[in-house]
C-alpha cells in the first residue's frame, strides 16, 4: 500500500505480505524492531527467538524523507512501506489487542497458540516508582510537512511569475480534454506546461505532449492525490520559462486532493453535467477548497436532466465565495471566459514578479551607490 494515502489498504499490505516469516510465534515477544524509521531501505527485524528476517522495501512516502526518497517521483516505483511490513508481521500474531488499543503493555495474546504472555514486552523495562513521565508540547500541524513543501513551490512560482492552478475533479469529468483545448487556444499567447497526476500510465501526459506543450507525468501508484513534494520534483524536471502558466492535473478524485496544498494559486474543481448536480453536497471538502468551479460538457445539457441552477446553489452552500463558469471543451462554448480568467491570473503573477525584480534592482542600485561613497 502506498503511504501517501490509505486507498490501497488491504491489497498489498495484508495479503501482499509475501516475504518469508519463519517465526512461529512461540516467541517470548520481546520484539526488538530494529527499524527506527530513519528509513533504510532494507531493514532487519530480530525477534527474541533469534529469528531474523530482513526485507527490502521500496516505499513511496508522500511525506518528507526528502533526502532519501527520490525514487517515488522519478522511477515510478510504488512499493509499500515499513509500517505495513511490520504490522503485517503482527497480523500473524498479536494484532487483535494492539488494534483495539487495549492495554497490551501487560499482556500479549497469540492467536496461533492461544497463549497469553505477561510482562515480556519492552513496555516493562521500567521499574515501578521510577517513572520518568513527562509531557512534551508539540502543537504541529499534521500536514505541516506537505505545507512546507507547498510554501517552497509557491515561492518558486512567485519568483518566476508562474501562475499555477490545481485542477481537481472526479475521473472522467474531462480535465485532460479541457487542458488540451486550453493549450491549443493559448498558443502564441502564453507558455503552458502541465504536471499530470494519475495512478498509472502516461496516457494523459502523452496527450498533452502531442499539443507541443511540455508535460511531466507523476504516477502515484496506489496514492489518490498529488502532494507538494511530488510537484516539487516534477518542477525540477520541467523547464518552465518565467511568466508561464502551470496546469497541475490532479488524480481524478473528489476527496483526498482537497487537503493537499501544492503551492498553487487556485484549486479549480471541474464538474461535468453528466455527473449528479448534488456532488458539491456529497463531496463538500473539495468544493470548499476550490476557488473556481467549471461546469463542463454543457453542450450535452439538452440531453440530460441536469439542473444547473440547483448545482450552483449546492456549490454555494458549501462555499459561498466559489466562482462558477459553464463551458464545453468539446464545442468551445464558454472557453473565452476560462482563458480570460487564466490570462488575468498570469498577468498578476507576471506583474508581481516584475515588481519584485524592480525592488531588487533598486536595492542593488542603492548598495552600489553606498559602495561608491565608501570607496570615495
Amino acid at each position: 500500500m502506498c503511504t501517501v494515502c490509505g486507498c490501497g489498504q488491504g491489497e498489498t499490505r495484508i495479503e501482499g505480505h509475501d516475504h518469508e516469516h519463519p517465526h512461529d510465534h512461540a516467541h517470548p515477544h520481546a520484539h526488538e524492531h530494529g527499524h527506527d524509521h530513519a528509513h533504510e531501505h532494507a531493514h532487519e527485524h530480530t525477534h527474541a527467538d533469534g529469528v531474523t528476517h530482513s526485507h527490502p522495501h521500496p516505499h513511496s512516502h508522500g511525506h518528507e524523507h526528502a533526502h532519501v526518497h527520490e525514487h517515488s517521483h522519478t522511477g515510478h516505483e510504488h512499493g509499500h512501506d515499513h509500517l505495513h511490513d511490520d504490522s503485517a508481521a503482527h497480523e500473524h500474531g498479536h494484532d487483535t489487542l494492539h488494534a483495539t488499543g487495549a492495554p497490551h503493555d501487560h499482556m500479549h495474546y497469540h492467536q496461533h497458540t492461544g497463549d497469553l504472555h505477561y510482562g515480556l514486552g519492552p513496555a516493562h523495562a521500567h521499574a515501578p516508582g521510577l517513572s520518568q513521565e513527562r509531557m512534551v508540547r508539540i502543537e504541529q500541524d499534521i500536514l505541516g510537512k506537505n505545507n512546507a513543501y507547498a510554501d517552497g513551490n509557491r515561492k518558486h512560482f512567485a519568483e518566476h511569475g508562474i501562475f499555477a492552478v490545481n485542477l481537481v475533479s472526479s475521473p472522467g469529468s474531462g480535465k485532460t480534454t479541457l487542458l488540451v483545448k486550453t493549450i491549443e487556444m493559448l498558443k502564441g499567447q502564453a507558455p503552458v506546461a502541465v504536471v499530470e497526476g494519475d495512478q498509472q500510465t502516461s496516457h494523459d501526459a502523452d496527450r498533452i505532449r502531442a499539443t507541443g506543450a511540455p508535460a511531466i507525468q507523476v504516477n502515484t501508484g496506489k496514492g489518490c492525490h498529488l502532494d507538494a513534494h511530488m510537484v516539487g520534483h516534477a518542477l525540477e524536471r520541467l523547464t518552465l520559462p518565467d511568466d508561464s502558466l502551470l496546469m497541475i492535473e490532479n488524480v481524478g478524485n473528489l476527496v483526498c486532493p482537497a487537503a493537499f496544498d501544492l503551492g498553487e494559486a487556485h484549486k479549480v474543481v471541474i464538474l461535468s453535467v453528466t455527473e449528479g448536480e448534488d456532488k458539491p453536497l456529497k463531496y463538500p471538502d473539495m468544493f470548499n477548497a476550490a476557488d473556481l468551479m467549471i461546469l463542463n460538457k454543457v453542450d450535452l445539457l439538452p440531453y440530460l436532466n441536469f439542473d444547473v441552477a440547483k448545482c450552483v446553489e449546492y456549490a454555494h452552500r458549501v462555499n459561498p465565495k466559489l466562482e462558477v463558469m459553464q463551458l464545453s471543451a468539446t464545442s468551445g462554448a464558454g472557453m473565452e471566459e476560462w482563458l480570460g480568467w487564466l490570462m488575468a491570473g498570469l498577468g498578476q503573477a507576471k506583474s508581481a514578479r516584475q515588481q519584485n525584480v524592480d525592488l531588487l534592482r533598486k536595492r542593488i542600485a542603492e548598495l552600489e551607490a553606498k559602495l561608491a561613497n565608501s570607496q570615495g
Partner: protein
Amino acid sequence: MHEMSLAESILEIVEDTARKQGFARVKEVRLEIGALSGVEIEALSFCMDVVLNGSVAEGARVELERVPGTGWCMQCGVSVALDALYDPCPRCGGYQVQATGGTEMRVKDLLVE
C-alpha cells in the same frame, strides 16, 4: 479521507520529536481534529493503532480532541457554530457561511517517558 496518510504523518512528527528530545517511549498522543477537517475520527483511530505498532509509540493511548466547527455568516455578520461545511446558518437559515474554525488537524502533545 486519507486517514492512513495522516496517521503516517503523525507518527513521523512523534518520531522526529523522540529523536530530538531523546525519549524512549510514548505513552499517550493527543491530537486536535477539527469537525470541518474532513477527517473520519473512527478511521484515523484505527489507522493510528496500525501505524504505531513497532514504533516508539507502540501501544500508546491516542486521545482525539474534537474541535467544534465555526463559520462566519455573511448575512448575520456574526460567527456561528457549524457542524458541516454545507450546513446553513443556525440564526438565519442561509448558506452564506464561510468556515472559519474547526478545520485544524494538529498533534497537540505527548506523554513520554
